[in-house]
């Protein structure tokens, strides 16, 4: 058997070449209000499609609104697991911190010459709280289970300490998704400058988020 025959007989493990991503149409985005599970696809599954929306400025306002609503609503179950009186705190942590920092991102990006509109910046920045909220939604049953089985006593490692780890993981997922969106968006003007602004902005955001966590008694 020749070498070419051997190679053709081997199992084919290649995956199809990816098609160019299509943007989310306005109708796709608006359908999320009626079908909440669609939010997972908009927020999590297709950063390359959101990137095309950013490139072509399609349905950005609607996307920003869906991201905002996702950040507010899907964070509630995790807050409820923390305590009935804490139902709003996770939404306040992620969304509140982002909204506090949003003006600085837009103003500084515009000031250094990045030509993007407020809707672009809103979609990019709101990716963080939206993804973090969806992750917290997934982690809520886990935290509930840990809280129920780890006891009320504050031991060496308490369920509250594990909760902080889960919240950090959710936050990192949000930041990663933001960068996936940005890096998939090839034609954003002055992308290098925007990357530089975002790197610095992450420092400001981290500062606000940590302060917010202290204020909300979610840290330490």
């Amino acid at each position, binding site marked *: 058997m020749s070498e070419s025959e051997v190679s053709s007989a081997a199992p084919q493990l290649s995956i199809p070449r990816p098609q160019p991503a299509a943007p989310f149409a306005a109708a796709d985005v608006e359908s999320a209000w009626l079908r909440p599970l669609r939010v997972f696809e908009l927020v999590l599954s297709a950063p390359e499609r959101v990137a095309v929306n950013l490139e072509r400025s399609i349905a950005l306002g609607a996307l920003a609104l869906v991201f905002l609503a996702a950040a507010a609503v899907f964070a509630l179950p995790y807050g409820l697991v923390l305590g009935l009186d804490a139902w709003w705190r996770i939404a306040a942590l992620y969304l509140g911190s982002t909204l506090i920092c949003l003006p600085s991102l837009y103003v500084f990006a515009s000031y250094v010459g990045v030509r993007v509109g407020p809707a672009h910046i809103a979609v990019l920045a709101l990716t963080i709280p939206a993804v973090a909220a969806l*992750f917290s939604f997934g*982690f809520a*049953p*886990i935290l509930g*289970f*840990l809280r129920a*089985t780890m*006891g009320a*006593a504050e031991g060496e*490692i308490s369920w509250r300490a594990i909760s902080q780890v889960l919240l950090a993981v959710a936050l990192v997922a949000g930041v990663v998704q933001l960068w996936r969106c940005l890096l998939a968006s090839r034609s954003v003007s002055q992308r290098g400058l925007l990357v530089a602004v975002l790197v610095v902005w992450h420092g400001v955001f981290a500062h606000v988020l940590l302060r917010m966590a202290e204020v909300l008694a979610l840290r330490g």
Partner: protein
Amino acid sequence: MIRSAALTLVCAALYGFALGSAHSELYAVRNLLKFPLLLATTGSVCALSWWIVARLVGAPLSFVDAQRAAGMLFKDASALLASLAPVVFFTARCLRATDDGQLGGYDAFLAGNLAAVALCGTLALLHQARELFLTARISPARARALVASWLVLTLAVGGQAAFFMRPFFGFPATRGARPPLFLGAEPDVRGATNFFEAVAQTLERPALPQKWPETPRRER
């Protein structure tokens, strides 16, 4: 899917029975229920987060698909462990017949079973990553990232569930006692009240309390 779930639970029960035989018939019979319950609890608690992680990684899996893929991990690992059940049962009976009534071969038996679980889990993980790559058309890197993320989530939740549901097998010194079905958050020999503290203590290796093993009611 139901057939796979049933097979998984039966295999887990077999392995649990063999494991508990190292201590007593009471523990062995209890493990017939406790091991399947351990898997079912872990799967239920992690279900939502498995799906959300899959969406972030870009795997085109529905909620049911994600449960099926993660369930296959359990099924493969359970089948592999069940195949070792005769070996574990034989070893357990030998240890039980020859132990000193105090610690016996507890540490070696624990280490051996941890190694077996790690081996079976790793093999199931590699197999499932390949299956995802072939059937869900996910790139190898993403398939590995997805399955590794599932593993981390499952280990954290499954570890705590196992800690809460202990004892699965105990020190020979406790033979004849009738502990509750689940010890829950009751401190173990070194004072750990949850899985994460127990892992930390395994790494730090603190000395056993002075009174042990005169009053070894608490056990892993």
